[in-house]
């Protein structure tokens, strides 16, 4: 608009000047002159203002350019900040992923399971788009444990290419992660790998555990550049080390597992062998018992005949006897009785062992039981002037087979009497310990030699005590006692101090309280069961 005014003014000045020049002396000439001067003045002012506007415009343009330059600075700074933030986020996520992986790998896993651990989350968190984790079961062989971002066919083609070339060997010899770039690497094997993966950059690392199966890790990046891939070498190295450690642990785990399996197999084998041996022993023992029973039975009949004829002869059935004959017949009878006792004991042991003599499970009144015992041994006690003490400590009941238990106690008491010198003391004690009744038979006799104690309950064992040289015995009394106590689910032990006496301790299951006891057996047979310590 202003330009148009200026043009009009210039045209007006020009016309006015021409008219003024053409009409000199005209009364309007001064007016025209005035107009001309005014216009010239206006033009002069306008010209000055235009110059100022142009300068302002130039200044504005410069400021505008400056602002645009500042925008560039802002964008560059923003880009740097973005990159830094992104990189930090990615690294943090990678470290978190490594931590998670470490947690997962802490659990004992098989080697194959470790190699199957590469998944999409791990690959993407590390900033890659493709990944393969392979194991080398034998030198030069490669099998993928897991792969991400590529198809099975692509993975197989890649595997075939890798094992055909030097890449696998190189990676296992130099396991440290290395970045391959399509733009930088001259190595044809690397170029082929990148082409097969379809990525411009990749990081390849070897997994070389101290023990266990080696392998390799390949991670490919589609978008980011070489710098980013190189920055990841450190993280990939941590990942590869973590996997190597897991494989080492896995190998140790496998080894331990195999050893444990082997041990378990051995234990089972030995147990089976022991079982077989035990069964064989049981069979032998049963055969022995059967044999002993048979022989004993066979011996009983002629022995009875011998005894019978001897008795008849002793009564003078076959004519009068001279003193020498009578004496010999008395010896025959005495030895026949001893032999009969031996046969009975042998038969009883065989019967108890084979389970053919079942033990009753009766409640026994202790008071009656002890009274019967005392009655049975009283003559022997009296003969040696022995003191007999009983302490039943409130125990009122026993549970078991009264007849067999009496037999066991009579054996122990007879032994005690036998090995205790005149005027000694025999003690019977009873007490309750938890669910057991503990009975003891003690004497103040000659005691037993320490080396003899382990063999004391063996059949036919007789101690070397001097008295045994004078008194005959079968050596079956304690063996039979032990069988009776064990048949009651009890235990018998002995302690002795040579020259001071011995204590036999019986531990029997206690009867439950509140049940009515049964009267003690009055069978005297128990008292005749060869009260011998040793044969």
């Amino acid at each position, binding site marked *: 608009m202003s330009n148009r005014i200026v043009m009009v003014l210039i045209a007006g000045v020009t016309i006015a000047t021409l008219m003024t020049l053409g009409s000199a002396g005209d009364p309007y000439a001064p007016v025209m002159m005035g107009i001309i001067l005014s216009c010239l003045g206006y033009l002069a002012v306008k010209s000055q203002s235009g110059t100022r506007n142009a300068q302002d415009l130039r200044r504005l343009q410069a400021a505008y350019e400056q602002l645009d330059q500042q925008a560039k600075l802002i*964008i560059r700074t923003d880009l740097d900040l973005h990159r830094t933030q992104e990189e930090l986020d990615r690294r943090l996520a990678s470290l978190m992923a490594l931590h998670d992986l470490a947690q997962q790998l802490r659990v004992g896993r098989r080697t194959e399971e470790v190699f199957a651990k590469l998944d999409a989350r791990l690959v*993407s968190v590390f900033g890659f788009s493709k990944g393969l984790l392979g194991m080398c079961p034998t030198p030069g062989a490669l099998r993928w444990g897991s792969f991400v971002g590529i198809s099975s066919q692509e993975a197989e083609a890649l595997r075939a290419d890798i094992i055909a070339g030097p890449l696998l060997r190189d990676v296992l010899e130099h396991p440290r992660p290395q970045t391959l770039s399509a733009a930088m690497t001259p190595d044809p094997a690397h170029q082929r790998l990148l082409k097969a993966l379809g990525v411009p950059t990749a990081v390849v690392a070897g997994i070389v555990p101290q023990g266990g199966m080696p392998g390799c890790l390949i991670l490919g990046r589609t978008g980011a550049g070489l*710098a980013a891939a190189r920055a990841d070498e450190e993280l990939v190295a941590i990942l590869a080390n973590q996997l190597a450690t897991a494989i080492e642990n896995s190998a140790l785990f496998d080894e331990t597992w195999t050893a444990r399996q082997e041990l378990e197999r051995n234990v089972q084998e030995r147990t089976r062998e022991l079982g077989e041996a035990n069964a064989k022993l049981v069979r032998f023992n049963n055969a022995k018992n059967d044999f002993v029973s048979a022989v004993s039975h066979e011996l009983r009949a002629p022995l009875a005949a011998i005894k019978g004829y001897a008795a008849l002869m002793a009564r003078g059935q076959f004519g009068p006897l001279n003193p020498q004959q009578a004496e010999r017949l008395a010896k025959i009878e005495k030895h026949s009785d001893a032999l009969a006792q031996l046969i009975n004991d042998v038969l009883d042991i065989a019967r108890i062992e084979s389970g053919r003599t079942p033990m009753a499970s009766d409640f026994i009144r202790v008071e009656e039981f002890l009274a019967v015992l005392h009655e049975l041994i009283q003559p022997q006690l009296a003969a040696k002037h022995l003191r007999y003490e009983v302490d039943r400590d409130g125990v009122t009941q026993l549970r078991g087979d009264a007849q067999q238990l009496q037999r066991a106690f009579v054996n122990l008491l007879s032994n005690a009497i036998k090995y205790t010198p005149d005027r000694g003391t025999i003690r019977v004690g009873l007490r309750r310990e938890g669910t057991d009744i503990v009975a003891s038979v003690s004497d103040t006799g000659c005691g037993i030699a320490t080396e003899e104690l382990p063999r004391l309950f063996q059949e036919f064992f007789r101690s070397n005590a001097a008295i045994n040289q004078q008194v005959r015995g079968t050596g079956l009394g304690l063996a039979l006692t032990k069988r009776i106590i064990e048949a009651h689910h009890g235990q018998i032990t002995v302690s002795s101090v040579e020259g001071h006496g011995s204590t036999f301790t019986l531990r029997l299951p206690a009867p439950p309280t509140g049940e009515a006891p049964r009267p003690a057996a009055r069978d005297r047979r128990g008292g005749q069961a060869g009260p011998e310590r040793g044969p």
Partner: protein
Amino acid sequence: MTQNLFVSIGSSDRPEARRAGQEAAQQAAAGLAGPARLALVFGSSWFHQEQLLQGVRAVAREVPLIGGSTAGEILPEGPVSHTCVVILMASDSLRCGIGAGRDVHLQPREAGHQAALSAAQELRDASRTGFLLIGDGLSTGYGQVTRGIQDVLGTSAVIAGGMAGDDLRFTKTYQYCNGQVLERAVVGALFGGVTWGVGIAHGFAPISKPRCATRAAANVLYELDTLPAAAVYEDYFGPVAARRLREEGLTRSGSAYPLGIRSESADYWLLRNVLALQADGSLLCSGEIPEGASLQLMIGSKQLAMDAAAAAARQAVEPMEHPAFALLLESASRLKLLGREQAAMEIARIRQVIGRDVPIAGCYTYGEQAPLAAGTSGAMAVQTGSVLVLVFGGS
């Protein structure tokens, strides 16, 4: 009479694709009272896509289904990854037509036309609410796709949607249509019998001086102020960063600094990502650049992005009386800008606007499509860097 819309969401991050799809669909089905009328499926591109869809279809057998791979998934709690999200919709009034168009990279208009035509034929003469579009995120001709859809549905049709992603790998994206996994395709669902509220915003601000697109054709920008466009663009980053950008490819970093086209009728900038610096000195952009348009380089900030999300949510929920579900289709570049923590806060802010009891789910995309203010052509409305909030309600 008001017809309610029921929506149920299921998700799974199991590594096995089939199990993930099945589990997500089972979860969604368990939360739905009536029979599902439509399934929207968003799956991480890391999944084996066919197996994923088989898993979903094992549960939602005959339910019409559309969806696509993503650059991250969105759940009410925040952004997630390596996850399958299944959204099932049920309503007596809801009607849907499903369609797909192939070869969107070669014939975008035909692809859009085909998808819309199939969907319209399925929906027949039911009232049309709008067309939900899911397309290949690596194709760029969405102006033409929109025109193809408008050829069928008319220029007044509401077209909204997002472009499938592949977790920022930029190699291949997938689109789901019923039981099929497609590539280089667009799929869409034409809705009837429900109401929609659409809101879109980006939160980027201009930072450079305006420059004139003196030579441009379709989505290729040749010259800015008569200078080679690539040189002008690169100059803003400096030689070192520009070299790095070239090396890495602009698809990753270019989204942080898009070009803004100022809308003539509103105080609004349409965004165009720069996808590549081409050998002839031109810029390949994510959408059409009109010749003669005034362009400015844009920059984002977390605060602006958060404010934009709230604005989009307000815009979407404003016309809705009873919002039943909010579908969130958000640019992957915004997730990069915000980071996971702030992205979760952003979703919380959207929920605050829409209503905390309204179910919300969606995914991160490579492009967003929505109608903008009046006077903006549909073709122009395809953009990037934005958050699209699509609120569904009963009829």
